């Protein structure tokens, strides 16, 4: 099933102030071939919400090979609790072998995290998304210190849409704050990653994730050796009319 750009834009407007559950219902009702992307962190709330709307939801995770043991344990816990299969996507072995051979296991501390993430995360993600018509993410606006960044609740995914058709991306938690996510987790007895009890807020790969102190932004717990740089080429022209 395909949707016009206008329809999607209309959903974006209509659902901007709706609840994550409403946005999930829209996604699951409109698109058959859709899956939830689950990272093994706070986005577990999406799995809980989606499984209450539809029994046979599809869930996938990106197993980079560098995740914490606690994350793997959560993946199993979630699989058991909700009775769902969590499809693990793995990096291309040849690309990983080449990276390790040329640069070692921790090249991201010298270069930056993008080459490793490209191989271990974005490549497998693209491979999975090529098989889908839509995907659901746990992305939230408050995850980034770049305040200009706006994540719509629904969008045509410009990065991953293929020649064969448009891929829709739903971000039901876009307007939620971390506190709302945690209120939901506690109120609904949702299993969570044990690392959160050790001061981790944002959880990714083990070498690139660390706990943060009270008051620190969660972004400071990821790729802390790199500066959080603003996007250089965003279009934000000033209005200079008198």
């Amino acid at each position: 099933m395909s949707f016009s750009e206008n329809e999607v834009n209309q959903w974006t407007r209509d659902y901007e102030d709706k609840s994550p559950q409403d946005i999930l219902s829209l996604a699951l009702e409109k698109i058959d071939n859709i899956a939830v992307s689950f990272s093994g962190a706070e986005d577990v709330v999406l799995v809980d919400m989606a499984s209450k709307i539809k029994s046979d939801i599809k869930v996938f995770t990106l197993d980079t090979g560098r995740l914490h043991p606690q994350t793997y344990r959560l993946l199993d816990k979630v699989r058991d609790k909700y009775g769902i299969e969590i499809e693990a996507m793995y990096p291309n072995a040849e690309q990983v072998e080449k990276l390790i051979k040329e640069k070692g296991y921790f090249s991201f501390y010298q270069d930056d995290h993008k080459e490793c993430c490209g191989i271990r995360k974005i490549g497998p993600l693209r491979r999975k998304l090529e098989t889908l018509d839509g995907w659901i993410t746990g992305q939230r606006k408050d995850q980034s210190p770049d305040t200009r960044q706006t994540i719509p609740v629904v969008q045509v995914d410009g990065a991953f849409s293929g020649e064969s058709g448009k891929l829709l991306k739903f971000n039901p938690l876009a307007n939620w704050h971390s506190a709302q996510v945690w209120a939901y987790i506690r109120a609904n007895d949702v299993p969570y990653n044990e690392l959160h009890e050790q001061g981790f807020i944002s959880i990714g790969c083990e070498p690139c994730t660390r706990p943060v102190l009270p008051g620190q932004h969660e972004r400071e717990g990821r790729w802390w050796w790199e500066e959080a740089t603003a996007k250089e080429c965003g279009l934000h022209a000033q209005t200079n009319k008198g």
Partner: protein
Amino acid sequence: MKITLVKKIKADGSPCKKCQEVIARLEESGQILQIDQILIADEVDADSPGNLLAKELSVDRAPFFVVDHDDGRRDVYTVYFKFVKEILKQKTSEQEELAEIMHNNPELDFI
């Protein structure tokens, strides 16, 4: 087919880094000859042709390409490697494509 490239000029008059990189690649490959027009999105002029086109197409980053096909279809590309692969039929490496996706979509860090 008509291909339009929109590039951004920053407030100090210099081109944005990404636009510079893309134009250098197009010039090096000779593919710049296949670009029919280049519009400027001037950071200090909201009414510059590039900004107006970006607004019309709801594009929030530069550079981007607009491809107007002979049959009336219009495609917009914000990913350079996707554009050269699909429109200019150039072979691209997966590594290049992934690097650009990450550059253009920093929010993917949190996937």
